[in-house]
């Protein structure tokens, strides 16, 4: 099992991450916040239904779309863009310094503790319908897979191929992909927990819950 204490210590040495907010699409930008040092918050609520702090509006074809802060933190830097300027998709707008949350720390540590099933190729991934149905009915942490099971479909260039799971049997503890996004080769798709380690993983999660103090 992994050494949780030293991993936590390592994370505590650099408990921030800097997030760059990019324009999601082209359009005219209108900033709602203009000063570095401002504190912002991310989406919240059970279903993330409460948006984060409004950063800017981006208007295209008469459609004014709000750009919200994706995470809580502090605005540390604005890129050199004028208000009402037409910006292209993917233009960097500003940077947020974000203190890692408990959940993010858990995710970092789980990536080291679980067996990761990695994307063998770049593409979009979907669960095969049998697994998808089980996950929808039972949820993460309750669906078992074994070596050789058909688990995922890889879609690239409109061609779909069934992907067989290669790794130790266990439960699908977490997923790392979104079917609408392309996954890079080598990126984790699934975090699988061998059945005999479920209790240990739960203990890891509990230790982080109590051992990590969230800050703004």
């Amino acid at each position, binding site marked *: 099992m992994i050494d949780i204490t030293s991993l936590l210590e390592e994370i505590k040495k650099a408990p921030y991450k800097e997030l760059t907010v990019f324009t999601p699409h082209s359009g005219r930008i209108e900033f709602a916040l203009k000063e570095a040092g401002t504190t912002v918050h991310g989406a919240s609520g059970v279903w993330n239904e409460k948006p984060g702090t409004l950063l800017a509006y981006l208007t295209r074809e008469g459609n004014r779309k709000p750009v919200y802060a994706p995470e809580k933190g502090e605005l540390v830097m604005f890129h050199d863009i004028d208000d009402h300027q037409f910006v*292209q998709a993917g233009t960097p707008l500003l940077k947020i310094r974000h203190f890692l949350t408990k959940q993010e720390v858990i995710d970092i540590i789980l990536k080291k503790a679980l067996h990761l099933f990695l994307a063998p190729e770049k593409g979009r991934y979907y669960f095969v319908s049998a697994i998808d149905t089980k996950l929808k009915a039972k949820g993460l942490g309750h669906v078992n897979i074994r070596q050789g099971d058909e688990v995922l479909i890889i879609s*690239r260039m409109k061609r779909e191929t069934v992907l067989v799971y290669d790794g130790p049997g266990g439960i699908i503890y977490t997923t790392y992909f979104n079917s609408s996004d392309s996954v890079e080769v080598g990126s984790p798709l699934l975090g699988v927990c061998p059945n005999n380690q479920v209790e240990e993983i739960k203990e890891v999660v509990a230790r982080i819950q109590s051992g990590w103090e969230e800050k703004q």
Partner: protein
Amino acid sequence: MKRNKVLIANRGEIALRIMQACLDLDVEFTCVYTREDSNSEHCTEALKKGGEKALYRISSYQDPNELFAVADASGCTAVHPGYGFFAEDFRFARRVEQRSKKLSFIGPSWKVIQELGDKINTKRLARKLEVPTVPGSDKPIFDDLEAEELASSLFSFQKEMGVEQPVILVKASAGGGGMGIEEVGDLDRFRTVLRRIKSYARRQFRDEGVLIEQRIFDFNHLEVQILGDHHGGVVHFGTRNCTVQSSGRQKRIEVAPGFDPENISYAFDASRVLSDITEYSLRMAREVGYDSVGTWEWIISPTGHPFLMEVNTRIQVENGVSAIISRIRGHEVNLIREQIRVGLGSRLGYQQKDIVFKGMGIEYRILAEDPDNNFIPWVGRIENFSWPDHPWLRMYTHVPVNRPYDIPTEFDPNLALGIVWGENLDQAKRRGKMFLDKLVLEGFNPSGEPLKSNVDFLRRNTDKLLVF
């Protein structure tokens, strides 16, 4: 013409060809690209030939609002959709022409796209005009019981016609280009395939309607290239044969004209078939007032019976193979240029008698894929890509030849189109093989395995082109 500026709402080689056609016509252009395409030659060329203001990054080629925002920001007056994406979306075409800041849509009018772009409407129109169509459904089916009933009747019909092993096709009605089609030989398997196609169609097209048709075996796949203007002029640019396809029914080689009756023996009157499908296509084009480039796709049975499959209301990938054998007043035709010209309101300016066909053309679609393993796309980095130039060769590609190129996985896997011309089929085939022999296409995937391409497949299939 000169006061126009065209938004090229597409990517890759078609964006490059539209760009070149605009330059030929002295029309300004604006290109777009997404993150995955930042290393494509269409971006490099847009900057080189149009300057910094000629290239905009967008989040998706499929976001109309964004395309319109770029069109307005860059002062465009027209939109060329290329092929795929919005090319056959009548709602998009209608919006282009009806939004508050109106633009010209370089394609058929939206009403024509609505009427012909839908496989179902096309079939109904064809039947009304006594144009033969493939037996099967003439509307998308969403209900499993209805689908099963039709499948069962098509199996019975084929048995009555003496077909020993009847087969039907299940197609995603919103699909196209050979995607989302499977064949089935019995009702039990039909149920499984129906579920699979519906699920695929829901994921890929967000529409789970299916079409069910009789599978016609050992057919040839022919096309008729049509061009009309907004003033009632309609002409054709001959036929193409697109029978050489991958196992997933993706075209790999196209030949123009569609048969070679002077040099190859057919079990039917091939000249008559070519003339019949051309006449049928023109009949439908005139009926709907077809006003751009368009392709009528045909299945020709081994006994020489044609069945209309569908109409593609767009410029097609293979337009160049028709163009290379077509001359108007002695000049080689560029169908994309013609499409832009008529799309911006010009008259054709010529009649059918002014179009002369000369020689044979072969188009090779060059892809990184594994033909021996169900044509699975190969994904990785192209390190070397080159070919010798010839006066009889047109090469269209968005793959850079002076730097490595990572093949994006988000789009169709076409890398390049090599179109060769010959005085006759023999010469065209010889030149085709010479082109393929000298083509260099090398690279590696992330595991260090060498690039797999379809070049050998193309070479192998060259000898039997147009033999039926």
